[in-house]
């Protein structure tokens, strides 16, 4: 048996949790560094995985299978394709960045915070690599609790309202998803002479679905339940109302992970499970979902323009950007799907960076109101330069990665529905409007009275802060110039996605 690298990546943070529990909580510096150390080890392992991953063939690699609950055919089954690998690397990268970015801002209950973050990482990685439907659900739920604590304990003044809203929205979706998962497994079991073997196995379920064996009414109901769970997480309009609250109240690193990874869980679920397992239903609902996506794109952008709070603005821009992702998924084109996944990664890098940058200003000013800012370009030149870079990336400047993802989605969806594609392009103008206008108000002009009152506290960003931003910026440039690095990895997953989704089209 080869090295179980997927289990290693997944449970390295858990070992970190165990290590943290024995360190007395008064040694805060040791606690911080231990957590960072384990997050870095997980990151290193995930980079190894990326290098070792065989680019050519489709299908899943590094599979691990252990029987877990044989009575129901539930397995501990892991495996990765190109999509999963990218998501795992995104997760491990953003996790260590978040932990490093929390060194300064988090001063209370450091140990609990770091433990929450590492448990969160276990859940997030697990979701992206689980190939057993039930195991997927368990990892999915594990993500919920640490994020609930991170927002609720270390968040802003209205944190309790925000975290309860986050949990309740997510739980409603995920519990209905559990019913759908069980119904699917039961349909599979009933179709196999009552044998539970493989009833939760992704490969077997997908093969069964590809054969058109899942009845249409089951598909409709199960798809709706899964769609609700994933749409809440993405979040799609009109299920997005928890997001601005959660983002605004979460600590900086919590927002980074929320935007960078948690929203991707929903999109990943749609690509991996909801569409391939229920292709008939996916096609039935494709148009309504496309319309909702476009609404989200436009609505998110328009609402962003009027936001008075920096973090809320970035949060609403997420709704808009993630709308592109769901649009890219449901037009069922290889180009658009590759664009959608690229957009997921871009959004993780860019929005993660924006939240970090906003957090840095908040650390110094304890305020995020755009109207109180002004003239930061003079007071914090490096910060302003980097902020400008991320703003341009978010607005889709050609040469940076944000452009490539959105462009591919336009191209892919243009073939299906030119009107939709055109409507989305208009939004790029809106995006430039709200982002550049915000940048102008924050960075240019004379130093505002509020900021002048802070005097010497307004220092430019530190070396550590630059370290947290650098990997994101590098990623944005590299993916902007060489998108094929990612697109090659996605060719296999895109083809199998279309093959799975295409069944209902053919007949």
């Amino acid at each position, binding site marked *: 048996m080869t090295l179980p690298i997927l289990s290693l990546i997944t449970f390295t943070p858990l070992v970190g949790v165990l290590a943290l529990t024995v360190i007395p909580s008064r040694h805060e510096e040791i606690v911080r560094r231990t957590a960072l150390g384990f997050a870095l080890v997980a990151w290193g392992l995930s980079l190894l995985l990326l290098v070792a991953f065989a680019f050519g063939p489709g299908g899943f690699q590094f599979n691990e299978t252990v029987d877990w609950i044989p009575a129901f055919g539930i397995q501990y089954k892991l495996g990765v394709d190109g999509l999963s690998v990218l998501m795992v690397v995104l997760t491990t990268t953003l996790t260590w960045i978040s932990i490093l970015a929390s060194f300064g801002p988090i001063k209370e209950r450091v140990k609990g915070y770091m433990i929450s973050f590492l448990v969160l990482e276990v859940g997030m990685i697990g979701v992206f690599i689980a190939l057993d439907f039930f195991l997927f659900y368990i990892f999915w*739920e*594990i993500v919920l609790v640490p994020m609930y604590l991170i927002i609720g304990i270390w968040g802003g003044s209205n944190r309790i309202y925000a975290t309860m809203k986050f949990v309740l929205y997510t739980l409603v979706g995920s519990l209905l998803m559990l019913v759908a998962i069980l119904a699917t497994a039961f349909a599979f079991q009933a179709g196999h002479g009552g044998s539970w073997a493989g009833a939760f196995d992704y490969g077997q379920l997908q093969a069964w679905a590809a054969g058109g064996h899942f009845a249409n009414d089951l598909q409709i109901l199960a798809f709706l339940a899964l769609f609700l769970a994933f749409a809440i997480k993405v979040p799609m309009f009109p299920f997005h109302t928890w997001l601005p609250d959660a983002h605004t109240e979460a600590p900086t690193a919590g927002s980074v992970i929320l935007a960078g990874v948690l929203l991707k869980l929903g999109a990943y679920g749609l690509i991996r499970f909801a569409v391939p397992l229920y292709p008939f239903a996916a096609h039935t609902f494709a148009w309504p979902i496309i319309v909702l996506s476009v609404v989200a794109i436009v609505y998110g952008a328009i609402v962003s323009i009027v936001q008075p709070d920096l973090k809320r603005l970035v949060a609403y821009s997420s709704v808009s950007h993630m709308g592109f992702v769901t649009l890219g998924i449901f037009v069922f084109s290889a180009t658009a799907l590759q664009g959608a996944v690229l957009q997921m990664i871009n959004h993780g890098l860019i929005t993660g960076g924006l939240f970090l940058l906003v957090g840095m200003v908040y650390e110094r000013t304890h305020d995020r109101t755009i109207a109180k800012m002004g003239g930061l370009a003079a007071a914090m030149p490096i910060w302003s330069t980097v902020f400008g870079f991320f703003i341009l990336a978010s607005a889709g400047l050609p040469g940076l990665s944000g452009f490539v993802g959105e462009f591919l989605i336009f191209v892919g969806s243009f073939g299906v529905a030119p009107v939709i594609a055109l409507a989305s392009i208009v939004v790029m103008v809106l995006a430039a409007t709200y982002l550049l206008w915000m940048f102008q108000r924050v960075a240019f002009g004379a130093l505002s009275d509020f900021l002048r009152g802070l005097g010497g506290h307004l220092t430019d960003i530190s070396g550590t802060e630059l370290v947290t931003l650098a990997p994101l910026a590098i990623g944005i440039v590299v993916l902007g110039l060489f998108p094929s690095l990612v697109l090659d990895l996605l060719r296999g997953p895109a083809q199998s996605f279309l093959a799975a989704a295409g069944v209902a089209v053919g007949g």
Partner: protein
Amino acid sequence: MSWSDLGTIAPVVASVLVAAAILIVDLALPNRRQAIIATALGGLGIVAVVILLQAGHTGSAFGGAYSLDNLTVFLDMIFVAIAALTILFGVDYIEPRGLPIAEFAAILVFAVTGAMLIAGSTDLVLLFVALELMVLPGYVLAGFARRDPYSTEGAIKYFLLGSFSSAILLFGLAYVWGITGTTRVDGVTAALAKVAAGGSIQPGLAMGLAFMSAGVAFKMAAVPFHYWTPDAYQGSPTPITAYLSVGPKVGAFAIALRLFVGALGPLRADWLPVVIVLAALTMTLGNLVAISQDNVKRMLAYSSIAHTGYILVGLAAYAGGQHSGLSAILFYGAAYTFMNMGAFAVVAALQRRPGVSSQIATFAGLGRRDPWLGALMAVFLLSLTGIPPLAGFWAKAYVILAAVQAGGWLTALAVLAMVNAAAAAFYYLRVVVYMYMREPADELRPSSPGLLFRVGLGVTCVLTLVFGLFPAIAAAATNAAGVFGG
């Protein structure tokens, strides 16, 4: 009666002897609390060994009135665990309030003896007698803090409604006896199978069915027969509330298994709609009312009503043709026992010093003031919510699995159960919010419970985790459910 009969009912006999021994020790060595506690815990240990020695064996005693099978063993183990845990949690709470330990332990063991007798009853008369043996000591326990008006009020409500429901149940049993001419479960089953095969059931039998359903629903605190629960739970001393929330409830489900699944099995198509309605009402109303509670004990009381609803979903799934509903009930019963007792025990730990209320404000800042107690409570509450990989998650998953498998209306019931579970997250997590996200209102010292108490908390927590990570107990539950064919 023969000696082999005594061997078959050995756990019940042992349990009665333990209760008697506690009283004798108290008489011989007054004020020696260690001796009393040691007798009680040691005695229950012996009872557990006796039960385990019977594992895998089958037999019947007293002409078929009492049966020893996998179900008996499974339920007996749960009941003994409940008794032992209640004593572990009770000592620290009863003593500072000047209440007698020996009476507490002896009454408790008598009650649990009744529950164990229910587990093995395959005769309607024995079933009723066993039920009364279980609930009568329960009334006494509910009023155990006799100088506390709330305790007395709760006990009186519990007693009046409990006696009333027992009478209703007995009335229903009488109808069954009148129609089938026997009180033996196998005889009743055979007679009713003929009735069921004949098509419609007589009005008398329908009346009996209605009375029995109402009686059992009272005992398990299903809506709309739940009125006694919140008052009895809130008024009782907290460790006794922990007992009342699991002991009589699992006992009532034992009756449901022996009576409805066993004796009335042939008529299950007739009682299925009743169970569906009861389940839907029970979980929905329990959760809705729990949301608005500011007292954690009362909140847990309503949440226990909601859990009754989830367990009833398993019973409905069985009646709907899915045998796995029965193992789901048994697994749920075991998981619920430990996580719920654990949650009540944390409340009891906080109330160790007299005068501390069970209002939610007491929990403010608990995570910082008392990190271990806070973490344990968080585990129990997350398990009650149904977050994987804890015991409560698997309990819900098995019930839902059975219901989804049964299909039709039961799938809708499963969806309703999940919507309820999401709503329940609100009030469970609200306690977590208070523990970890709010500062304490006043300076409460850490409650530092005694050694016995810590052992009890440790056991419940470990079991909540073990059932979650290694759901192998499900296999035992499946074995036990195998008693009813399938």
